[in-house]
């Protein structure tokens, strides 16, 4: 497949929804999600070989969106810390509105190492099987199991310390 500017514009029309939908979930902000959509396709203009070497356009868009959004979550966390904003302490799930609980998930994702956070996103937020996660992360299914187990431990500790 040839990915010149017009081809990438075509991909934006045909596949852009995959980026926008997942960025909305991961970032929880319409403005940030739309910025992610633009950023990811702008990156494709700069480096069209990235998707050609990936083998699957959908798979590449999942990887690029996850990477971009996790970076944004980490930047937001760093920004909040620099500005000394108060991060809402953890609350019992039953007593927490859904929006706040979703924000807490994003905050905790920002605390996890990238590969662990990506495994969590793919498996729990996208519902992927271990085989599908392994394909996108480029590792074995056993490694995916290790990452998810590690994620739950880190998650529990982060919640307790919040």
């Amino acid at each position, binding site marked *: *497949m*040839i990915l*010149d*500017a*017009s*081809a*990438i*514009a*075509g*991909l*934006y*029309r*045909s*596949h*852009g*929804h*995959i980026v*926008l*939908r*997942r960025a909305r*979930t*991961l970032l929880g902000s319409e403005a940030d999600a739309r910025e992610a*959509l*633009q950023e990811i*396709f*702008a990156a494709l*203009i700069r480096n069209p070989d990235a998707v050609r070497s990936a083998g*699957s*356009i*959908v*798979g590449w868009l*999942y990887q690029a969106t996850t990477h971009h959004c996790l970076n944004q979550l980490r930047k937001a966390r760093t920004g909040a810390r620099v500005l000394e904003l108060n991060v809402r302490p953890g609350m019992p*799930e039953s007593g927490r509105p*859904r*929006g706040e*609980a*979703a924000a*807490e*998930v*994003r905050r*905790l994702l920002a605390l996890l190492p990238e590969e662990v956070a990506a495994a*969590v996103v*793919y498996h*729990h*937020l*996208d*519902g*992927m*099987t271990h085989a*599908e996660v392994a394909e*996108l992360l480029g590792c074995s299914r056993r490694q995916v199991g290790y990452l*998810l187990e590690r*994620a*739950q431990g880190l*998650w529990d500790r982060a*919640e307790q310390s919040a």
Partner: protein
Amino acid sequence: MNLATTPLSWNSCLSALRLDRWMMGELASTDAESVGAHVAACAACSTAVAGMRGVREEVRALPLPTVLVRPPVRRRLPRPAVAGLGLTLAASLLLVVRSEVGDRERRKGPGVALAMYVQHGTEVRRAAPGETVSPGDAIRFAVSTPVPAFVAVLSLDPSGRASVYFPPGPRAVQVPAGTEVPLPLGTRLDETTGEERLLGLFCTTPVELEPIRLALQQAQDGAPLPTDCQGLRWSFVKR
């Protein structure tokens, strides 16, 4: 908080990745049929797919980002534009491009035409009957249509396997009226030897391509076309 039960956790039985790949035509035909049957019978997955389609329509309605906006389409596909396909040659075998209708522009119907451009190394030319090109060359299609039409280009490879060259999605996509409007995706010829046949479709509706692809594979050139489509056929012979 259990990771499997957060407010952001996925609720359908098939993963978002699998549903997206199904929607975008990335699954093999038997796999796609299996997913389609499941979605039709599963409330959670059909709801997820409906949500995905809703976002797809949103994005299609958005203006293109500035970085993706191209200059207006020219009436002719000039050499520099085609050279922008940006591919290098990796070829040793030769391919003969043949037209079954013997017409350089493969016209059928009132003003409908399919043209093909070939990039061989740095040289770009319009394909003509009997012209030799090489596997590894880049090809790109351009269409002419007096009215907006939903367009697709399918192929039958030498082994009789049908595939869709254009578009990447599951349905024919609308192309504005114009002369030699370049289709936004090109491709590179593979090195399989033998005859490769192309079918250009010009339809009045965004027809589903998978049934047409399957019919083409089963009946080869005898496959009937949808009633709301015109077809233009080409043939390449690799030798």
